[in-house]
């Protein structure tokens, strides 16, 4: 019913997006900012932007999400947002007392040409920024890129704001990419397990999956501390996970502070996790028995159940870094990845996915939308869809099992608590895939073929 209007015939559209597979930069910037300890994100634009981003993150995480806004009015849009931002800076430090204020722009403030750097300088001159407090800023126009690019821009701004060149120390930087708090937690655990010191940033674990304790904490215990961020320029190397979300910050750390970087896929799946672990080993990490066992368990589950994956067709929709890694993982499991769609613009995505799938005979598109994916699936049906909550319409329409992964997930929990990265994450994904496929089989199997043992 909902999607009955989607025709099978694909016509190229230039002028519009139908059922978007992306959202705008500022929400990604806000998410990244929340990964700094005692940081308040600030949206330099109309009130609605900030309210929408907070609501969106709240729906996804079921957590309170704090952010301030410049509360633009018609006057501000005509005369510039300087007065609003200056007042905001004073109010924020007086009232909310964050250690870091992370300002991102919106389409409105970008287009009227507010010079945020100059406004911050003026705020400092006028004594609006108390001693020992930090302000960082990212330019995040909503009409360029997507939420992933907004995230990448804010992570880069963290480097701009905190990293200084200096004598190299023994730790490494980990840029986790636009992943869940549970994933960041898991990455830290693995690095620690291998005996390495690291600074992972941003780190939303403990912020957007904080415990219930009877208190409201404006600044929960998680997040990368300023103290740690200040050492990022002294690291011996940076491990950047996901080229789109983490690449820009890694490159800046290199040019600004001379910290060399390794650009890796997100460690989703066995092969990408192996690569992550091997890179850590090269940087001095030790692979201990426990990690070997974790890997072995994941492989055990995969080999036990491989018959259920083989040649099953799958469609993927979401963000570029996740999709490339997922394509590789699913292909390694024996799936046939048929359609891969992202809303985020970027031509390189296409070659990356094709490489991960090991074939050119696959439908890949960037700057695309759910409407297009729906048409692709109508033309070539799949056995499984993996995507965010918005994929549920077509999953229902076409009666195809859906695994929720990515952002946003408004209708299930789990993503904030259980990782999809690393060997543990691979095992969890395998379990999810099996459950989805087997539940489907159980529901539709004719009585005589309804199996007890699977």
């Amino acid at each position, binding site marked *: *019913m*909902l999607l009955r*209007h989607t*025709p099978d015939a694909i016509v190229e559209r*230039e*002028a*519009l*997006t*139908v*059922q*978007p597979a*992306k*959202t*705008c930069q*500022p929400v990604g910037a806000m998410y990244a900012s929340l990964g700094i300890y005692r940081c*308040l994100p600030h949206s330099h*634009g*109309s*009130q*609605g*932007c900030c*309210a*929408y*981003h907070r*609501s*969106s993150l*709240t*729906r996804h995480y*079921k*957590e*309170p*999400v*704090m952010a301030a*806004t*410049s*509360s*633009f009015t*018609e006057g501000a*849009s005509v005369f510039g947002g300087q007065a609003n*931002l200056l*007042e*905001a800076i*004073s*109010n*924020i430090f007086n*009232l*909310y007392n964050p250690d870091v204020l992370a300002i991102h722009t919106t*389409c*409105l403030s970008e*287009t009227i040409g507010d010079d945020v750097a100059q406004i911050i300088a003026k705020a400092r001159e006028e004594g609006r920024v108390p001693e020992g407090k930090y302000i960082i800023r990212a330019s995040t*126009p*909503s*009409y360029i890129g997507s939420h992933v690019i907004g995230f990448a821009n804010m992570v880069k701004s963290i480097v701009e704001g905190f990293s200084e060149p200096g004598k190299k120390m023994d730790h490494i930087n980990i840029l986790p990419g636009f992943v869940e708090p549970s994933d960041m937690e898991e990455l830290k655990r693995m690095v620690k397990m291998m005996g390495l010191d690291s600074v992972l940033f941003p780190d939303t674990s403990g912020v957007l999956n904080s415990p*219930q*304790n*009877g*208190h*409201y*904490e404006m600044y929960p215990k998680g997040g990368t501390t300023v103290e740690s961020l200040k050492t990022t320029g002294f690291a011996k190397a940076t491990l950047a996970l996901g080229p789109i979300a983490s690449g820009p910050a890694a490159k800046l750390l290199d040019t600004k502070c001379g910290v060399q970087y390794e650009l890796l896929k997100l460690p989703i799946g066995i092969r990408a996790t192996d690569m992550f672990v091997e890179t850590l080993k090269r940087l001095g990490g030790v692979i201990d028995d426990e990690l070997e066992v974790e890997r072995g368990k994941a492989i055990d589950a995969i080999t036990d159940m491989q018959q259920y994956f083989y040649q099953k067709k799958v469609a993927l929709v979401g963000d570029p870094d996740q999709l490339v890694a997922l394509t590789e993982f699913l292909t390694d499991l024996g799936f046939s990845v048929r359609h891969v769609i992202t*809303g985020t613009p970027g031509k390189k995505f296409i070659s990356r996915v094709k490489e991960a799938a090991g074939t050119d005979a696959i439908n890949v598109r960037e700057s695309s939308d759910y409407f297009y994916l729906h048409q692709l699936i109508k033309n070539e049906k799949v056995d499984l869809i993996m995507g965010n909550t918005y994929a549920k319409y077509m999953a229902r329409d076409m009666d195809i099992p859906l695994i929720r992964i990515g952002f946003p997930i408004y209708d299930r929990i789990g993503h904030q608590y259980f990782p999809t990265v690393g060997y543990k994450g691979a095992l969890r994904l395998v379990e999810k895939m099996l459950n989805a496929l087997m539940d489907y089989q159980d529901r539709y199997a004719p009585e005589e073929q309804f199996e007890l043992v699977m």
Partner: protein
Amino acid sequence: MAQTNSGFLKARTLQIFEKGIDSFEMKCDKASAAGSVSQRACTFCGARVVLYPIADALHLVHGAIGCAAYTWDIRGSLSSGPQLHRSSFCTDLREKEVIYGGEEKLKNALFTLIGKYSPKAAFVYSTCIAGIIGDDVEAVCKAVAKKTGIPVIPVQSEGFKGTKKDGYRAACDALMHLVGTCDSDKVPLSINILGDFNIAGEIWAIKKYFEKMGLKVIATLTGDSRVEQIKRAHTAQLNIVQCAGSMQYLAKEMKVKFGIPYINVSFFGIDDTAKALYATADFFNVKSVLENTSTLITNEIKKISPFLEDYRKICQGKKAALYVGGAFKAISLIKALRILGIQTILAGTQTGGKEDYEALKALCDDGTILVDDSNPIELSKFIIDKKADLFIGGVKERPLAYKLGIAFCDHNHERKTGLAGFEGMINFAREVSLSMNSPVWKFAPRKGADLYD
């Protein structure tokens, strides 16, 4: 205000009031202080939520992708027929259009969509960026309407123009483009229902009451509505305005243009629902309608009373905090909570007006805090200080309540059961008492207490 003001922004002193202690006139209707963590939204948001439920219209967001993405099917405004309103259409403006203008793209998008979906009308929402680059949305709409033969209506909802309230007005302006655009005569004993958006099917319950009273409902604005209904709305004899904040402006316009009188009502709680139905019946002053109304109300109350008695036993003596969009809802909620024996210790709104706060002051008990345009820090402080057992609010307030270890009831977009009318009162009582009495609170530290207190 003496005890609770410390730590709050000076500029907000006149927006926080404690009954029995303070005596000033509350400041409201003012823009949020820059830098505050406000729970408020923008003009676009207001316009979008009001027009969104028109199910057979095309809703095209002219702007950057975010405005479309965040308003894609997030409001549970149910339709009994078409579901077109639940799709997300956006011109997805990019850098190129920001420089060269987006009118051409808008025109193409409209032609494509109208060709594909054959909607009965199209609404084009202007966002911040469309306003700033100076696209002449009105001219494009006019040109497309001429070619396609359907109403193509610009909604002047640039986010920076103000708060949600200004968006309601922009939506009402857009609706006035439709109302009265077909030839029909006045229908005897007929009404429109304004300001109900059919969240969780509420308009279906309300409509049933009026039909039982012997009245004909011409248009529901905008819950489960169709373009044709709205065009014919001028044939009704009375407008019943449920959410005054969003729709009173439309009622006023319709009064001026079509001479249709209106009454402000609320369908939350038994008292207010009964009052609304009686007021409507009184307006028509027809014997059969008056009789039907009194029979209906007596029967409905008889039906729900025993249940309410049971819930009252469970809820008696509890304390509630509420933070909602408009003041009309706050007033109804306080009354509904009283029926359950629950005292309101905090009542806040995003967009309440001066008279609203005076009405709230009159209604509340001593010690109740009233707050305009609040934020999580204030809200959580009041909840703990005043020892609330229950918080009623919207999406951003829910996790706040749970972190504090208290019960929650969504009275906004995300409510899943209808809370309006007589059945709604039972649903409300059930939801509130279930949440307050859930066994999970046994494990959860509550109200700012330390874990092992």
